[in-house]
């Protein structure tokens, strides 16, 4: 008699067109690439017990490509995180590079993919805050065609995506803008638990003591990554260094905008206070960089 796992059917498309056709015919199949989220014993057992179908993306070469133009870097969704990090900080935005190097550990980064980190859609996943801050774009593909969207529209809530049946994340487009200061900061529980509780990405461009552009993103506070254009615009155009009164006013504004979850593992007060501390830390660093 066959064991449950023996009934698992694995499809291995070799091209993106083949993949999309297979996925259109089998929209309930499980898409599998790096497998760091899905390959634990319990999760594999649950897939097997339901005799589900798996579409394995490891042979779809188009999903592993990197393409660089003057304005963008485009990364195939199945490229392992370690390969992306090896592109180097002089090409990859430094904040994103720092975030990717902070994910799990080297062996997991050899398996895990950027596409997987995005599609898991957990707001504390480390790639998300930098991708929100740099205005990353995603290309989604299905047999019906291709559509691009900003990453900020990809996940309406924790674990949820706007992917339709039969649609995959094909590639991630990263704008290659110049920033005078970039940072990524991760707040995590311990060495063993390497998931972020919160993470923060800040970018700043300044000229002649004027803050020209600012991007701020905070992950893990709520069901989606927090980014506020209103908050950013309050900082843009300001003369550096900001006075203590300006900093306090900005933090008070941020305090009103932050809406920490009440049902998470840590208190909303802690999340709020940590978010505001990270924002203050970012401003202090801009002051230092501008000197």
């Amino acid at each position, binding site marked *: 008699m066959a064991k449950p*796992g*023996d009934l698992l059917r694995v499809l291995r498309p070799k091209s993106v067109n083949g993949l999309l056709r297979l996925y259109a015919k089998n929209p309930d199949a499980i898409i599998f690439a790096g497998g*760091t989220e899905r*390959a*634990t014993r319990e999760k594999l057992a649950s897939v097997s017990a339901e005799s589900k179908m798996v579409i394995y993306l490891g042979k779809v070469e188009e999903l592993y490509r990197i393409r660089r133009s003057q304005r963008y870097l485009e990364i195939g969704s199945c490229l392992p995180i370690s390969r992306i990090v090896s592109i180097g900080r002089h090409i990859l935005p430094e904040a994103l590079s720092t975030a990717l190097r902070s994910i799990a*550990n*080297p062996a997991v980064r050899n398996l895990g993919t950027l596409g997987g980190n995005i599609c898991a859609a957990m707001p504390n996943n480390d790639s998300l805050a930098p991708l929100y801050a740099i205005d990353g774009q995603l290309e989604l593909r299905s047999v019906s065609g291709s559509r691009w969207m900003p990453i900020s529209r990809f996940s309406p809530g924790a674990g949820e995506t706007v992917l339709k049946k039969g649609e995959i994340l094909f590639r991630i487009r990263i704008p290659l803008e110049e920033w005078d200061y970039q940072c990524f900061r991760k707040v995590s529980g311990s060495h*063993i638990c390497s998931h972020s509780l919160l993470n923060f990405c800040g970018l700043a461009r300044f000229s002649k003591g004027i803050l020209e552009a600012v991007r701020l993103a905070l992950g893990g506070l709520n069901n989606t990554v927090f980014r506020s254009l209103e908050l950013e615009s309050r900082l843009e155009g300001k003369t550096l260094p900001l006075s203590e009164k300006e900093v306090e006013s900005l933090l008070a504004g941020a305090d009103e905008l932050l809406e920490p979850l009440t049902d998470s593992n840590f208190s909303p007060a802690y999340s709020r206070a940590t978010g505001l501390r990270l924002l203050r830390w970012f401003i202090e660093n801009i002051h230092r960089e501008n000197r």
Partner: protein
Amino acid sequence: MKISFLVNKSPITINSSPARRLVDILRIDLGLTGAKEGCGEGRCGSCVVLMNGNLVNSCLIPAFKLPDSEIVTIESYAQSKEYADLKQALDDAGAFPCGFCSSGIMMVAGNLLAENSSPTAAEIREALSGNICCCGDYDSIIEGIRGVTIKPQSRRYGKTR
């Protein structure tokens, strides 16, 4: 599902459920018990092997990813001179009281030393960030790994930090 792949340079063909994990295939089907299952979710590093030249956690590799791959386990690495040097240096440093995590750490350290013959303590710590040793101490392990690059008679463990 019939799966053919290389383990320690030997061609292997097995019949396996596609959902079985590499760590189970190595330990149960092939009797290669050097890779240990600790956490089962890629955090502890006890099951680390090389897959197509890259360090991976064998607890996170389902059998359906194996066809045409090349796996190297601690049993193969343990035959090399590099392993003997590393083991001696770690023994000299007094690392690994129990040894459960040691095969994973040896694989990671061997891979690091192959890429970087004189890693700094920070580079070793980063490389070992996915290896949990619960009963030893990391300082001894790091000193042992750094000690590989030092002649045995010149090692002064505990005094080189």
